[in-house]
């Protein structure tokens, strides 16, 4: 078998272990229902360590819900999620079924995960520095000086050291999103989740955020990204999963998926982007 074929098997979530480049987060048989509405159906996915996985799919296909399940912001109704081998929220029972894990365990496993939202969700009553250092103080128990020093160095990484003392309302959308990234990074997560991090930004502010994310990817951060920025996905993602109506229609290496979108739904989906960007390039 050729390597790309192997990688595709890798992503089924059934194979692969914890070796280097192994699986960081594994989802098996996950389902999620809101009221009558089954939003995710028996999803299997393995997020590989050290690379970027992009989740694509039409609006309403369940991308955000899947990402929120990975952070245990939504409780899944069936299935198991493991983060570096440790179960998140529910553990499989030996005889079948699942066991609700205690809150403390959820908190501990969730430490491995950082999340960046579409709406930034910065706390408006704290400066950029306050936003980034808050959890360092309260959760890590660092002293104010230590926390702020550490926060400052993370703000530097997203190139915002000079905006540390500004309130969110005094920052542009792109800057706000970079602070939100810094806030998540400061807790040193092993996996970063991004839910459409640029889609509430003006097109020209999108660049600065994508560039920070590109850097993170180059540094080997494990990332799961929901995005409509096909260009970014094609450039940066190693793995791609395509969701449609709550099911994973296909997953594979990005270079295969974009080069020959063999599934008709995916081809349609990419078409809408091509339609709107192609003319420039001819």
């Amino acid at each position: 078998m050729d390597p790309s074929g192997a990688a595709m098997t890798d992503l089924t979530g059934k194979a692969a272990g914890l070796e280097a480049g192994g699986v960081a987060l594994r989802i098996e048989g996950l389902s999620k229902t809101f009221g009558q509405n089954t939003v995710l159906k028996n999803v299997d996915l393995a997020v590989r360590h050290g690379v970027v996985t992009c989740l694509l799919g039409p609006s309403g296909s369940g991308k955000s819900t899947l990402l929120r399940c990975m952070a245990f912001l939504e409780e899944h109704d069936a299935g198991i999620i493991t983060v570096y081998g440790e179960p998140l929220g529910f553990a499989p029972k030996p005889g079948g079924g699942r066991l609700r894990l205690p809150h403390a365990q959820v908190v501990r496993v969730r430490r491995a995960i950082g999340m960046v939202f579409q709406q930034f969700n910065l706390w408006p009553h704290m400066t950029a520095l306050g936003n980034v250092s808050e959890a360092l103080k309260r959760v890590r128990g660092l002293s104010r000086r230590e926390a702020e020093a550490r926060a400052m160095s993370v703000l530097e990484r997203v190139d915002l050291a000079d905006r540390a003392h500004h309130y969110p309302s005094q920052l542009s959308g792109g800057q706000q999103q970079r602070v939100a990234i810094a806030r998540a990074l400061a807790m040193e997560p092993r996996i970063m989740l991004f839910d459409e991090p640029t889609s509430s930004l003006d097109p020209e502010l999108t660049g600065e955020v994508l560039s920070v994310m590109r850097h993170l990817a180059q540094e080997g951060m494990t990332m799961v990204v929901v995005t409509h920025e096909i260009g970014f996905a094609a450039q940066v993602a190693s793995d791609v999963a395509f969701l449609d109506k709550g099911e994973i229609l296909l997953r594979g290496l990005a270079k295969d998926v974009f080069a020959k979108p063999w599934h008709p739904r995916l081809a349609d989906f990419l078409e809408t982007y091509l339609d709107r960007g192609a003319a420039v390039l001819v």
Partner: protein
Amino acid sequence: MTLDLDLILHSIPAALRGAGITVMMWIGGGLVAFAIGFLVALARRYGGGWVRWGLAGPVEVLRGTPFLIQLFLLYYGGPFIGLRLEPYEAGFLGTAIYGAAYFSEIIRAGLEAVPRGHVEAATVLGLTRTQTVARILVPEMTLLILPSSINMMIILLKETAVLSIITVPELTLVVTAIGSAHFAFVEALLLLALIYWGIVEAASALGRGLEAGLARYRMV
């Protein structure tokens, strides 16, 4: 019609003493009302089904009946269930309970108006519920409820005029008594209107100042 300006001038010291009592009952009762309202709002948000139901009823009754009737029942009815309060105590408690019902609703709405994502961000970062309430929800909510809280305080100020029925010598009682004693009703009413209006304007100005001071935290 001629106004007896002399009488107005001579009444001012007594009126100011009444105003002092009004302001004392108002600020004291209002602050306690806010504190109780806050606890009720938290209990209704995080408490179990019983707590929620148990609190919803009294809040609705307190918001649905005139302050005058509540005060009367508390003061004149209290002794029948062994609650014997002196006028100031009853006035203070009545104001606090009445205000608390309103504040609990204002604060509940405020807590709900904080975007869910701000709380989720805290959850993912590992802040506990208590930390999230204390560090995120409460400060953000404060900003959101400031205008309606100031409004409520002003309503409460004017409601304190009713305390006269339980013999608390507050502004309205004192000034109308002066008017009756000198058969100068219009003068008394004008003086009364002026003093209340002055207190309300001062309170509104203070509120506007607070809001302006907090403006930079506000997302546009």
